[in-house]
């Protein structure tokens, strides 16, 4: 499964990724000069955190958000393994927001859905990876069994 790999040494915290995520995915108008004035304010799905780390959804192998979602809105695409929000059935209960260990799900009261990175699953290429000026973000195959990419607790059964 392809995931977004971050190289923190190359990230300059320029915020290009979250700006363009907000424009390309979060906004209605999809153009810079229109999206920045849109109401409700577009919500980017990537967070430039701490010391140079753009944080996206990890698409965990065992996803707490899918477990917590009461009505099956949070689901996994069987073909790609990506976790995404099926917006029509979201009841804005924010269970997923509370339970995500990475904190990357945002409640959006204005549009009544939970908002989360879906690795641009309906696009050819994730926008953040495309715009990153230092190539700190890359699209790569997830290594087998690599727990660094996701939340995969050791189970004893």
């Amino acid at each position, binding site marked *: 499964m392809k995931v977004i790999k971050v190289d923190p040494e190359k990230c300059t915290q320029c915020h290009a990724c979250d*700006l363009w995520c907000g424009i390309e995915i979060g906004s209605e108008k999809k*153009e*810079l*000069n*229109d999206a*920045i004035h849109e109401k409700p*304010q*577009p919500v*980017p799905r990537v967070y430039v955190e701490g010391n140079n780390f753009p944080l996206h959804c990890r698409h965990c192998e065992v996803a707490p958000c899918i477990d917590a979602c009461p009505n099956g809105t949070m689901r996994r695409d069987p073909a790609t393994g990506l976790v995404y929000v099926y917006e029509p059935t979201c009841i804005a209960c924010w269970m997923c927001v509370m339970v995500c260990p990475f904190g990357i799900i945002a409640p959006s009261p204005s549009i009544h859905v939970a908002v989360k990175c879906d690795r641009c699953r309906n696009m050819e290429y994730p926008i953040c990876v495309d715009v990153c000026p230092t190539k700190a973000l890359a699209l790569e195959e997830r290594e087998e069994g690599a727990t660094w990419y996701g939340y995969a607790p050791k189970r004893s059964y």
Partner: protein
Amino acid sequence: MDFVQRKTADSVVDHFLKEAAEKEIPLVWDRYEGSLPQCGFCETGLNCRDCLQGPCVSHPFKDQNKVGICGKDKDILAVHSFVRLVVQGTMGYLDQLADFAKDVEAGKGSPKRKQETTKLIKDIQGMWGDGSTDVMKKFPKALIDGWKAAGIYPDGMASALFKVSQKLDGGVGNVEETLLWAFKGALMGCAAQMLQGRLKTAVFGDTAPTNVEVNLGVLPKDQPVVLLYGHFSPFLKQKIADAAKGKKIKVMGVCTDPFVPPYYFAPVTNYGSQEIPLMTGAVDLIVTGDQCVNPSLAELAKVWKVEVVPTEVLNRKDVSSFAKEIIGMAQEAFKARGEVARDIPNIKESGVMGFSAKDIHADKVVKALSDGKIKGIAILAGCNNVKFTQDQEIVSLARELLKKDIFCVSEGCASVGLAKFGLLNPKQRDASCGKGLSALLASLGKNVPAVIDLGSCENSGVTDFLLDMANLGKKPIKEFPIVACFPEANRTKAVARAAWTVAMGIPTYFWPFLPVTGSQKTIESLSGFCEEKFGAKLHVITEKMDYIKKAELLVKSLKKA
């Protein structure tokens, strides 16, 4: 900004783009593509680096960093982005003037009209000091009174330039007042341009409309060639031409004033393709100023073994000996470059350049307006910008306007772009112009082309023409159907130029859009507030449109005569 598929409309440049790609030599277009997408914060003006607590942005999508650390909100950040450009652009005009005036004051050269020169030097000193100049008094009284009432009549370098720059440092202000400060700074640039144009004619004599040839085909194959790039003292240019005379050395120019009477420096190309002449192999030495000169020329020069001589250095030599040294170096370089292949496409175009306001009978233009023979006047300025297909915007726009009987005048490197495509060629005039416009142009003289070049940005041909119109038409400038357009604007000088054009009451269209779009308030103030104060808007248009739509916009904005 977007990827541009077709880099240039100039086929000569295309020829070399292929060579550069094969040889893996990066040109301006490659560097532009490597920079995409450009920073959205800077493009929309929502950024600031005026202190060390930053750099700050106003993030449109995050609530925690919407306002700069010192408190500049998105409206102020955007208007400051505009102010920064205007200040730098104004200093460009002041720098050109200062260089020239300093040499004249030091007694260089023998001015053709001594009394006029002395008066102008006194005026220039007044401009630096408390701003009292005779040249600004040439504007109609109503316009001056309006500027004084708004508080923006330039009253000296300190209060018009230093103070406007300090607006960027902080203070409590609003968008509208900050904009007025920017216009005050820009008007100093206007005064500087007018003084420089007049000083040039007083010292060297008048420029007459001259038959010129432009584009790479003018480069000779078997003579030493010196190319003058950018802006530097006209005295140095004169001395270089003096030293070259009789030695069969060709002195030509790129992005520089082509006329220093009695000399003329053929414009080999314009801003967007300034790197290309070096690739012909025909250029032996380039003399570079600072303004409008790409630093990449130094790297390119190495590949084709071209000598590079910068003029704006710390320890400046005496002009005459410097010029002789340059010519000596050019001759040496020519001998050393014998085996460098020459690849000079045989493409050039004729044109007539070097009109000044006195060569246009403004009374005929005023009459043609009132008779309805022409529908309005368009001022074309700006140069090239890699964000557009080179020359396409300005040439196509000009052709649309000419067809609709709009009298077009051009300034600076815009003229060179138009010349490359025959719009300054009198023979192509009637084919490109509407009937009414053709008739007017034919009545202005024997050899008048479709678009009239009123001089480089070191002359105030356009402003002088507008002042003549206002005088003869007995109307304020803002009541004439005039529109200004920068179709491929680039340098900060263009932003200052646009600002003072609006201050004169002329609606101005500027592409690419100014970096103020992050603030609706700033966009609206550049429209509504400027219309209220000056009678004209500075248009910020983000909508993508082709040149036909742009031409329609320009025509619609022309008020009824």
